[in-house]
């Protein structure tokens, strides 16, 4: 392990890590938001809409992220969709992860006992209030663990963005490896960064999980 070499490349590695975290964070927000919308939209009793959303989920969940990204970035211009590499990367990650989040939220909403919703209906709460105050908080109990899990998986899926020249960590590592012929040092540095990110996310995830299940605690 050549520390001096890693040190020399530290600025570009750190900048790459910054891009990775940014793409992951923004992509995840897009994915989560889309996922909620898809989960809610698929409750609408309209066969063509449900079918369409089903197809959407099957496509984005059923094909490799690499391929989706490639089509979005390289195929986009053919239909007039010219995206900067980073934009394409973030959007791609958002679309890809939204299929997973949609399924997680669908399951979360389905886990809310019907009686809790009937209680809100019998009181005359609007569907929006019921969603925000009753259904969503209750759905999170079941949804948070798989959401955190998917967030972690997606943080590592960001390596694929290097393929379309997003200057994220993997891209920087490949550059370093190519310039110095030192595959091991570069890869090792990358592992440390990813481990750091995953560790932080899973710790935050455990806290969030505690927070949303606070009310389930029984007296000791």
């Amino acid at each position, binding site marked *: 392990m050549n520390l001096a070499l890693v040190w020399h490349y530290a600025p570009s590695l750190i900048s790459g890590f910054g891009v990775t975290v940014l793409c992951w964070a923004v992509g995840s927000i897009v994915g989560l938001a889309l996922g909620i919308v898809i989960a809610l939209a698929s409750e609408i009793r309209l066969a063509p809409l449900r079918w369409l959303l089903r197809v959407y989920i099957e496509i984005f969940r059923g094909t490799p992220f690499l391929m989706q990204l490639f089509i979005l970035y390289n195929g986009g211009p053919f239909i007039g969709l010219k995206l900067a590499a980073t934009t394409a990367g973030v959007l791609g990650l958002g679309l890809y992860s939204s299929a997973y989040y949609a399924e997680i939220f669908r399951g979360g909403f389905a886990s809310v006992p019907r009686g809790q919703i009937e*209680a809100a209906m019998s*009181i005359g709460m609007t569907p929006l209030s019921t969603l925000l105050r009753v259904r969503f908080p209750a759905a999170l109990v079941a949804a948070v663990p798989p959401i955190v899990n998917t967030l972690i998986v997606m943080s590592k899926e960001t390596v694929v963005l290097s393929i379309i020249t997003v200057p994220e960590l993997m891209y920087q590592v490949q550059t370093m490896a190519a310039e110095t012929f030192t595959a091991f040092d570069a890869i090792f540095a990358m592992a440390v960064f990813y481990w750091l990110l995953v560790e932080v996310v899973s710790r935050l995830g455990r806290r969030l999980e505690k927070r949303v299940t*606070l*009310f389930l605690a029984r007296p000791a």
Partner: protein
Amino acid sequence: MSTAMIEARGVGKRFGANEVLRGVDLDVGRSEVVCLIGPSGSGKSTLLRCINFLEAYDDGEVRIEGELIGYEKASDGKRRPMGARRLREMRREIGMVFQHFNLWPHMTALGNVAEPLKRVRKLAAGEAEERAMDMLKRVGLAEKAEAYPSRLSGGQQQRVAIARALAMQPRLMLFDEPTSALDPELVGEVLEVMRALATEGMTMLIVTHEMGFAAHVADRIAFIDQGRILEQGPPRQVFHESSEPRVRQFLQTYHDRNAF
């Protein structure tokens, strides 16, 4: 004007091929306490749920203080489902208490009672919580205000649920087997709250298996079997003077079970 609080006329409800209600007529007057009794599967819970349209009835009419609930007349003379907003407005005047309490588990007892006041009655947080606290006092649970439902006994949860419904200041209250999910020793505290409510003049329609409670508190008992009201009248008449064989047979099982 003396319109009845609830007027049900020829109410019919089917689940697929299963005809659950077959033309039920039932009136509940102001401040009247009516208990619906009958074997399980007889349609009594379904009837109760048709009153606030949690269940959409297929035939007949249910009127709350004279106003049809759930449907409105369309221009072609047929009826169509009522607008969602108007239905919500009507439901706000009808309190409902469920067999399984249906408290929102992520809110404290106080939160459960205050939530509808904030979201539906649009009270400011402080005022909503103040009124919620008054309601919890009324059901004897002020000291449990900050407890989550998971830390309350079934009886306490049901009293919070009653407080939640009462806080809305409904004009009538529906109770769907409010004590059926409770341990026998917790039944009393819930019935006590309901008895007090009846004394205060609340209009109540109660589906129950608590025959003793029904006999003492109800102004009228309606016996339902196979989707029809077979008999109704003052408790004394239904419990002791009924000539209807189904009613006698049903009540006999209660006498047998409690004779030890």
